[in-house]
């Protein structure tokens, strides 16, 4: 990792009532690095991502993007910082009222002030980059399959050539073949853009595919982080149980919130 991390998180805390979802998360993500945060359902992975994106205000802690503190910044500063970001949501989160190409071009038109005429060819190029033909651009999101929605979501995430791309459970709900296709597209797009990537998933196959480094979130803290090659022999019983998907071990699944 380079000396100055692209994203630096220190002591991040987020509570919902008395429930401590994040309880002092420390994580650095280097420039051009692809970090995958793994953890069980309800472990706070999505909350961590939402705190970085400014969708949830943390109770305490620091998040720095390129050395700039982003916790507590104004909404106009947040809009400026978020121009560095691209995000692929778990359900793709495409805008129903817009066509596919308008979805892909949304950031270019709204945040970068591009005209529709300028933005449309770029949207079509981005659709091609994720393996979709130009005629898909005129469809409505409701006409797409789950895998196609994910591709369009990826095209939208990369359209404004972001410096950092976030992936929220990119393969959840997809069949194994489509999961592999999406994983390969993510690796390809991130590499071509030279972007930094932060993904959250509990799909270990996907994590191994797209990560340079893996961090495990448990009990509101990052309990282990290391290169993807080390995950199989991580000297941590929590990681070992999670990676091998064993019901027995130190992690006890919560059956109640």
């Amino acid at each position, binding site marked *: 990792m380079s000396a100055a991390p692209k994203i630096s998180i220190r002591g991040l805390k987020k509570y919902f009532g008395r429930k401590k979802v994040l309880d002092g998360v420390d994580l650095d993500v280097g420039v051009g690095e692809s970090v995958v945060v793994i953890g069980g359902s309800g472990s706070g992975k999505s909350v961590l991502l*939402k705190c970085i*994106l*400014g*969708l949830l205000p943390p109770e305490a802690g620091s998040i720095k993007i390129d050395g700039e503190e982003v916790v507590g910044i104004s*909404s106009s500063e*947040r*809009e*400026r910082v*978020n*121009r560095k*970001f*691209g*995000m692929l*949501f*778990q*359900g793709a*989160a*495409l*805008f*129903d*009222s817009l066509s596919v190409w308008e979805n892909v071009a*949304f*950031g270019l038109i*709204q*945040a970068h002030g591009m005209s529709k005429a300028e933005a449309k060819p770029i949207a079509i190029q981005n659709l091609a980059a994720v393996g979709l033909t130009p005629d898909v651009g005129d469809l409505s999101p409701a006409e797409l399959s789950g895998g196609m929605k994910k591709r369009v979501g990826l095209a*939208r995430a990369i359209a404004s050539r972001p410096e950092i791309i*976030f992936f929220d459970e990119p393969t959840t709900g997809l069949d194994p073949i489509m999961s592999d296709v999406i994983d390969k597209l993510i690796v390809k797009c991130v590499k071509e853009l030279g972007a930094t990537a932060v993904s959250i998933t509990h799909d270990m196959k996907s994590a191994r595919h797209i990560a340079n480094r893996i961090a495990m979130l448990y009990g509101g803290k990052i309990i282990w982080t290391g290169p993807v090659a080390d995950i199989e022999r991580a000297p941590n019983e929590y990681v070992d149980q999670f990676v091998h998907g064993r019901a027995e071990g130190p992690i006890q699944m919560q059956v109640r919130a």
Partner: protein
Amino acid sequence: MNFLAIIGRVFLGFLGAIGRLTLFTIRAVVHAVAPPWYFRQIGRQMLEIGYFSLPVVGLTALFTGMVLALQSYTGFARFSAESAVATVVVLSVTRELGPVIAALMVAGRVGAAMAAEIGTMRVTEQIDALVTLSTDPQKYLVGPRLTAGLLMLPCLVLIADIIGVFGGYLVGVYKLGFNPAAYLKRTYDYLTFDDVYSGLVKSAVFGFLISLMGCYHGYHSEGGAQGVGRATTNAVVSASILILVFDYVLTQIFFGPK
């Protein structure tokens, strides 16, 4: 002690809701007034609130005017004041029934749709997606709807006024046997600019309230499909109550004893 705690919790919850709504309203108004303006969104909402509500508002206004003529005739006939029917119809429609009935119909049609659309956007993370695309969701979603509601309700009510008066005319002339020219003269003679103007001001306020409630409840919906359903119901109920409360307040301001 437990009982007091429950009362306290309910009261604090109520104050919290008032605070959230006040902050939401202030932000929404600022976003509606300050540039950039999303003209395409405003146009789409104007079409939705105005043009597509015309049939339902027109139909209810027509029957309201007709029923009003019939009811006032049978009532006034008891003390030989049938000639006041035209005046009663035009004043009731322009001052009161036109704005209120149109607003209640639009609250049911558009307020519910707004809450459902924005609520679905909330639970499917589309609102979060707007933030990640450097677009303020309140500015993009709420501002245009408030502007469209404020502008389109007076237009709708103006048309509803005309149709309502026409409904009264139809019943008055063809059912009750009034002379057409005399009915129209009675309608014009006692109608003042303030009667129409007050109704239009009321309707602008109602339009704002309908959009505000639709957006507020949709924006804060949570808990999947059930949450969206709850938001839709709350949007219609709260808008309807506020319409009636503000109707009284505005009537007091315009016509109440000084």
